[in-house]
């Protein structure tokens, strides 16, 4: 069986996961370890007057004044006008969101630590909370960070000849859209163990993180330690999605405390902490106008986008990763001449916003693609035909769009054609002309997006956030018995990198899959990396592994040629053997010679041996653009508001696929999350900033019965810039479903004149919109 690039190999890591043999932070027990429970702010905005700690537990409770030497978290950007927030690990002076850490309680067990937390009395003077981002933009709003004078982390603006559209003959539609705040919900929450290794003189932090090296840098900054005195380990991690791409206040607090107390400390986030203190993504508001000519060809977009960025700028991606990108993502896959977009990153009394799978794209795709359907309805054009008029065409590739994004390759119209064909739009249109036997309404909707991935130095240098990705490295070496070790600084937590990077190495060196070990998740064992984010690993770590394997191949061939008593040009590397005209020798024998029988080596053997560190950058570092067309068919019960997804298809182009089975898994998992955004997930807040869900009975996630079979078709247009033509695609599945499903629901409800412009679309929202449309003129199109 082929084990190289393109093989549908089962994932290596699943052997341990499926047998329950993974090792997560929660599985780790250290001698003398105690547990931490945090006392968190019960109110959204207030001034701390007093924290009263009973004397008999004073030695087990720590507050900010106990740790004056700790430097607050600061995640600034170099973007003009950015305002900096200062986030102490434990609150100082003010609390700015429910769930903010106030005190750290230490006890032999978590239950006892929680008992202690209950004894601590907080005296907090409540201040008016900024709960709604639009209200937070108003001049009379309460302020989170008083010295700013307003609540704006950042405003951005782009204008490309916008005013000129007004002199052209045009039609336009304007829509106001909203996406709700969500709580990312990896199966495993966050977790941290900190201890001091007195032999190595190192603080060892074991954390469920996507970015061990970035966490180390952040800890060094906040704790005032040299980076060499800190080791960060990310063991098995049960899902990240961006939730674990952050320097945690908890990591800093535990690190400080373990150095003070002298024994290991553990904190495992529970689901309530996850929901209340970690509801940190997706909340956007759009006022979007699309201009088109009479035929439906797009002329312009005009957008005002607001992102609820929460209370603090999270390290390392900052408070502005979402709003800062909206301007450049919004044009989508379309080619049009006039454009204007302004964005606002608003500080509110909610947890800091984090990038969730798809980052800003899920909201942007929702706003754009739902508005395009409204435009199509307004013009009386089939929505896919309207899109077809404006999609960037394959002969334009590579294409620099109106916001200066550089699309590397692809055939967008073909993806749309295939999706239209797969979902069977003509059959659905025919079916819609008859009433359904059960009285439900049928609808079909499409959405398209592209996903920038693996973007590197040139992109991030201008952002100026705490890290800039440079060369990605792999350290590769042969063991004395011919096994291959690949050490990478990125982390795999569901992506299947232990398998796909093996496939890359196998395709170069021919070493068997079972003899390749991918090591990751430990700053002591791996080269520096900015970690796993932005769908970058298959491009960057894949490229680095290939580069390292190339260099190993050259060394192996040189030794092999000598042992075969010939010259390098006369040998080749085939299936793990160096082959010459007269014979062949295995890599295992070459490795054995290097390590254990050096007396047999040629006198001029390369002293660098069978171990290399190689770095990689794509030929162009503006990223690959994978893309997809999603299509959904739904049935809507207008009495109960129930939505059944009858069919869901994805036509995806991720360039050359390293392991199509893993890609399918990524797409299905992403779609499940997208369905959550579209139909279920919503963290509501009351007027005082209190989160309205604290368990998974209140915060609904889609389960197996809510996620349909996802039908997938692949196109494979190689990227011209990456090693194998591969593109990053890990996030895409989560981007389009809210838009596609919303479009399908609005198609189903078009007979009522109902448009839903909010995520999630809950049954209640559907029923109430239909009832309102029946009761009034059927043209009201405000966001719910």
């Amino acid at each position, binding site marked *: 069986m082929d084990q190289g690039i393109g093989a549908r190999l089962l994932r290596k890591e699943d052997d341990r996961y499926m047998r329950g043999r993974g090792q997560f932070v929660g599985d780790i027990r250290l001698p003398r370890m105690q547990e931490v429970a945090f006392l968190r702010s019960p109110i959204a905005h207030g001034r701390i007057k007093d924290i009263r700690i009973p004397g008999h537990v004073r030695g087990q409770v720590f507050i900010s004044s106990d740790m004056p030497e700790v430097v607050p978290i600061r995640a600034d950007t170099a973007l003009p006008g950015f305002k900096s927030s200062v986030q102490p690990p434990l609150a100082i002076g003010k609390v700015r969101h429910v769930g903010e850490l106030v005190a750290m309680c230490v006890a032999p067990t978590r*239950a006892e630590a929680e008992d202690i937390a209950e004894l601590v009395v907080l005296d907090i003077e409540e201040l008016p909370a900024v709960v709604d981002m639009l209200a937070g933009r108003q001049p009379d709003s309460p302020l989170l960070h008083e010295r700013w004078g307003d609540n704006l982390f950042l405003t951005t603006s782009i204008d490309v000849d916008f005013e000129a559209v007004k002199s052209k003959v045009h039609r336009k539609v304007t829509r106001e859209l909203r996406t709700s705040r969500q709580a990312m919900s990896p199966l495993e929450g966050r977790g941290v163990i900190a201890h001091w290794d007195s032999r190595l003189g190192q603080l060892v932090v074991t954390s469920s993180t996507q970015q061990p090296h970035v966490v180390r840098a952040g800890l060094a900054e906040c704790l005032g330690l040299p980076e060499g005195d800190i080791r960060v380990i990310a063991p098995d991690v049960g899902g990240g999605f961006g939730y674990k791409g952050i320097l945690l206040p908890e990591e800093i607090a535990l690190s400080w405390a373990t150095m003070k107390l002298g024994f290991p400390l553990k904190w495992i986030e*529970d689901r309530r902490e996850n929901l209340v203190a970690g509801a940190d993504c997706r909340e956007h508001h759009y006022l979007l106008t699309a201009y088109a000519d009479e035929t439906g060809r797009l002329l312009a977009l005009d957008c005002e986008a607001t992102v609820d960025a929460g209370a603090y700028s999270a390290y390392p991606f900052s408070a502005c990763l979402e709003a800062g990108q909206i301007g450049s993502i919004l044009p989508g896959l379309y080619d049009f001449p006039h454009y204007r977009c302004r964005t606002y990153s608003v500080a509110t009394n909610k947890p800091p916003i984090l990038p969730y799978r798809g980052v800003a794209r899920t909201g942007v795709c929702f706003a754009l693609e739902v508005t395009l359907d409204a435009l199509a309805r307004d013009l009386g054009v089939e929505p896919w035909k309207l899109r077809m008029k404006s999609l960037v065409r394959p002969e334009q590739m590579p294409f620099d769009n109106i916001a200066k994004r550089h699309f590397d390759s692809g055939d967008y119209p073909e993806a749309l054609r295939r999706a239209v064909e797969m979902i069977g739009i003509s059959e659905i249109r025919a079916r819609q002309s008859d009433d359904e036997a059960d009285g439900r309404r049928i609808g079909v909707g499409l959405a398209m997006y592209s996903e920038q991935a693996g973007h590197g130095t040139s992109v991030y240098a201008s952002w100026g956030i705490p890290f800039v990705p440079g060369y990605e490295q792999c350290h590769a070496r042969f063991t004395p018995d011919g096994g291959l070790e690949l050490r990478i600084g990125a982390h795999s937590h569901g992506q299947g990198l232990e398998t796909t990077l093996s496939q890359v190495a196998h395709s170069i060196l021919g070493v068997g899959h079972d003899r390749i070990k991918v090591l990751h998740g430990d700053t002591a064992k791996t080269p520096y990396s900015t970690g796993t984010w932005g769908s970058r690993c298959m491009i960057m770590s894949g490229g680095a592994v290939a580069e390292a394997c190339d260099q190993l191949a050259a060394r192996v061939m040189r030794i092999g040629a000598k042992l075969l008593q010939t010259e390098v040009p006369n040998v080749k590397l085939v299936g793990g053997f160096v082959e010459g005209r007269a014979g062949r020798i295995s890599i295992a024998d070459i490795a054995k010679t290097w390590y254990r029988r050096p007396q047999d080596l040629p006198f001029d053997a390369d002293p660098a041996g069978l171990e290399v560190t190689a770095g990689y950058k794509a030929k162009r570092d503006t990223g690959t653009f994978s893309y997809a067309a999603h299509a959904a068919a739904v049935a809507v019960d207008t009495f109960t*508001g129930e939505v059944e997804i009858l069919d869901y298809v994805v036509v995806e182009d991720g360039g050359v696929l390293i392991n199509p089975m893993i890609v399918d898994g990524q797409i299905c998992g992403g779609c499940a999350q997208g369905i959550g955004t579209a139909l279920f997930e919503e963290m509501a807040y009351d007027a005082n900033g209190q989160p309205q869900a604290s368990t998974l009975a209140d915060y*609904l996630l889609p389960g197996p019965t809510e996620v349909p079979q996802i039908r997938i078709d692949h196109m494979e247009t190689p990227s011209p810039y990456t090693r194998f033509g591969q593109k990053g695609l890990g996030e895409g599945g989560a981007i389009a479903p809210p838009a596609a499903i919303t479009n399908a629901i609005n198609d189903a409800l078009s007979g009522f004149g109902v448009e839903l412009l909010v995520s999630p679309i809950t049954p209640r929202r559907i029923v109430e919109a239909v009832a309102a449309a029946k009761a009034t003129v059927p043209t009201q199109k405000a966001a719910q």
Partner: protein
Amino acid sequence: MKAPAFDYKRARTLDEASALLGGNAGSMVIAGGQTLGPMLNLRLTQPTLLVDITRIPGMTTVQETSSEVILGACITHANFEDGRVPDATGGFLARVAKGIAYRAVRTRGTVGGSIAHADPASDWVSTLIALHAEVDIHGGAGRRTMPLEQFVKGPLSTDLRISELVSAIRVKKDAAGDSFGYAKLCRKTGEFAEAIGVVRRFSNGKKVRLIAGRSDGSPIVIENGADFIAGRSIEREQLYPYLIERGLRDDSYSRGIHMAALQRALDESWGV
């Protein structure tokens, strides 16, 4: 979140359980723990003593008389689902049990616990009210029996007094020839119902009993259900105003889900 400290005692007899409950102000019964467990961990309830009643002889067994099936309070939902309980309703109880939460919950959660907790969104409360089930209550003064409909006073509120616990549920065998239907609307599979419909069509005569179960109040019992049914359809225009009079929340969504639950239950009673 972890539970605060509490004492735990496993009662060997009903009398011992009553005595423990009566003698400790902060005591609570634990059976399957599927509701109490999360409440403890969230520290929403902080008992000083938990009295485990699951090992009391008779609590997981069934007695049959000529007219009744008497179900021990600690029989799990899974035992109903798997058909290990004599069923006076021709498989209806098993059908209902199969839809309770998730299998993991069903293997531990008990019918008596569900009744005693009296969550109005629970499947058993509405279902067993439709069956005219009675509740055996054991207390310091011995046993008393009362109709479930009266036992449930409101959301999370019952007629149980200090020192009392539910020991059994009585289902009459006169239900044998009747037709039943059950439907609920949940946001997702396994979640708490927002609307429950139960239909009991009696074999003798044209009588139909309807139950409209809801999340914010006790189930609404409609004895004269036949008055609101035309053919095989619920007459929404008549029934909805009647339910509003009886206290159902009045909005377009409430109307949609409750009418749908009752219609689907009626459909199921016809085998549709």
